[in-house]
């Protein structure tokens, strides 16, 4: 049996019964990374020795009867945006190429407390800015379903690693779709929890009012198991909420009979790949067969979401990334004439093109004379987008849409056209702007065998319902069981 192809649920059952050991499982995953990852490039750093050492510690605990729960002894990975004590954290950037964190992010701390084995740090678009993982300083990640194609982004390393069974699940981050879009393009499950559900402490900031961490996993149930561990209030993140954390697997098996599903007409527009549209519509009809009520709804401000996002996110980013000045940590350009020269050269040499583009857009939108016209205007339109959803959720329980308007595109296809790249996130961005939760679940393959994903959006802090809907779909269709040919 190839242990790495199991789900968390299956592997944890075997660990609990002491039929397999964490060391055995971790070795199986590391061996696969060694064999397969040179071609996929889903990891920036692999913790070869640390992972085995940690697995040995966890094994001792399990043998002595201290089983901690479903993540105990399970090899996971995290996007290289989460800091981890004593380990390099690059955020996909040259400017942090040699940054060794002196402390742990809350997400990593919680995973380790639950007994999970962190096997490595996944590749990503630099500072999480991108939709293809081509913006990484450490080279692009390749899609396991077709090595000439992108895995999506920015959590493309996480999605590719899960898809190719190079970890059991990974923690990604989602500012405008960076968990859901790569999950869709790699044929795995990606959950963006509601803003405030998971602590952002130790997660390198991109756009602070939108960033949120969440699991990318092989199945919906696995995603729920991981969310159980990482969710919750954190005194170190004042935007994390003091709400009780339910057991996200408790109601996951309940049906969807009578559930009201909204289908927004603005998400089935000209320009969407017909095969994607077909697969998603088929999935929606399937929910009708399961007894859900389907209702067409309207989210009239959808077409303004990308514009709104590409003002707000770069504005916040330009402010957040001001900290990379070559003084306290990270890269510093050598031979500088003056302090200002040092700041400028450090940033010009340390950041990649997309990060510079976003810093420039944000600085422009926030600069004197333009603040009202761009930044304030975008925040007002954000209110309209949020209201669209509030109104819709008075009538429906969840909203179903395609996750991405297309399947995985070719590496290099969009790198010279930033606007075209930005439009990859057209269906995922509104969820972040409105403060909702959303999950992408595989819903079939196109004629070339590339995965298609459907997106289920839920009310703020109603992860339970979207996970239940996703799980219902998954167990009846089994798309998540299909493995990429490469793997």
């Amino acid at each position, binding site marked *: 049996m190839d242990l790495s192809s199991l789900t968390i649920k299956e592997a944890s059952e075997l660990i609990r019964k002491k039929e397999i050991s964490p060391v055995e499982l971790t070795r199986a995953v590391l061996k696969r990374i060694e064999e397969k990852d040179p071609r996929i490039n889903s990891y920036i750093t692999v913790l070869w020795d640390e992972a085995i050492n940690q697995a040995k510690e966890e094994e001792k605990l399990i043998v002595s009867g201290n089983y901690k729960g479903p993540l105990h002894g399970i090899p996971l990975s995290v996007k290289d945006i989460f800091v981890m004590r004593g380990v390099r954290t690059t955020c996909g950037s040259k400017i942090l190429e*040699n940054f060794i964190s002196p402390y742990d992010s809350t997400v990593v701390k919680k995973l380790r407390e639950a007994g999970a084995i962190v096997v490595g740090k996944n590749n990503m678009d630099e500072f999480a800015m991108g939709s293809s993982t081509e913006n990484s300083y450490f080279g692009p990640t390749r899609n396991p379903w077709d090595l000439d194609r992108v895995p999506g982004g920015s959590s493309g390393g996480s999605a590719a690693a899960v898809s190719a069974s190079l970890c059991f699940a990974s923690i990604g981050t989602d500012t405008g779709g960076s968990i859901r879009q790569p999950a869709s393009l790699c044929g795995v499950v990606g959950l963006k929890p509601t803003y405030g559900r998971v602590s952002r402490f130790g997660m390198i900031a991109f756009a602070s009012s939108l960033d949120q961490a969440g699991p990318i996993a092989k199945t919906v149930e696995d995603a729920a198991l991981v969310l159980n561990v990482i969710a919750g209030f954190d005194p170190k993140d004042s935007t994390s909420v003091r709400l009780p954390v339910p057991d996200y697997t408790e109601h996951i098996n309940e049906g969807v009979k009578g559930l009201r599903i909204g289908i927004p007409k603005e998400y089935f527009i000209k320009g969407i790949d017909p095969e994607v549209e077909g697969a998603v519509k088929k999935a929606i009809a399937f929910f009708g067969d399961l007894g859900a009520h389907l209702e067409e709804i309207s989210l009239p401000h959808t077409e303004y979401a990308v514009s709104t996002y590409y003002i707000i996110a770069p504005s916040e980013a330009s402010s957040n990334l001001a900290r990379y000045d070559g003084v306290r*940590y990270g890269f510093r350009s050598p031979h500088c004439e003056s302090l*200002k020269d*040092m700041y400028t050269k450090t940033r*010009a040499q340390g950041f990649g093109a997309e990060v510079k583009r976003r810093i420039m857009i944000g600085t422009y939108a926030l600069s004197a004379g333009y603040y009202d016209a761009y930044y304030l205007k975008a925040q007002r339109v954000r209110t309209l987008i949020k209201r669209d959803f509030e109104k819709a959720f008075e009538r429906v329980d969840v909203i179903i849409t395609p996750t991405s308007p297309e399947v995985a595109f070719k590496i290099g296809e969009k790198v010279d056209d*930033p606007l075209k790249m930005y439009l990859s996130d057209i269906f995922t961005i509104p969820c972040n702007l409105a403060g909702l939760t959303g999950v992408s679940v595989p819903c079939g393959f196109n004629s070339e065998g590339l995965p298609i994903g459907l997106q289920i959006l839920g009310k703020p802090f109603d992860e339970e319902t979207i996970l239940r809907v996703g799980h219902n779909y998954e167990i009846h269709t089994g798309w998540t069981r299909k493995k990429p040919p490469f793997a």
Partner: protein
Amino acid sequence: MKITKETVLHVAELSRLEFNQEELEKFTEQLGRILQYVEKLNELDTSDIEPTFHVLDLSTPLREDVVESWLTQDEALENAPYSEEGFFAVPKFIED
């Protein structure tokens, strides 16, 4: 609004970034197109709409003022490109 090279140079200065001639051409063209695209928002009348700076109703959480240990000075300086005598060191920026 048309973005000129002068505007790009000004914003680069504010951002503490610099570009060579080729990058400047490319950024001027790309930023112009992106800003033209986002001007779509002007189709909407938002004069009566309150802005949403944040999706949550945030308040500043308070806690007891208890001293906790955090990074030591050495740990805080570990990642510094240059440090001297317990300080972050930078090029001289005050005239003699």
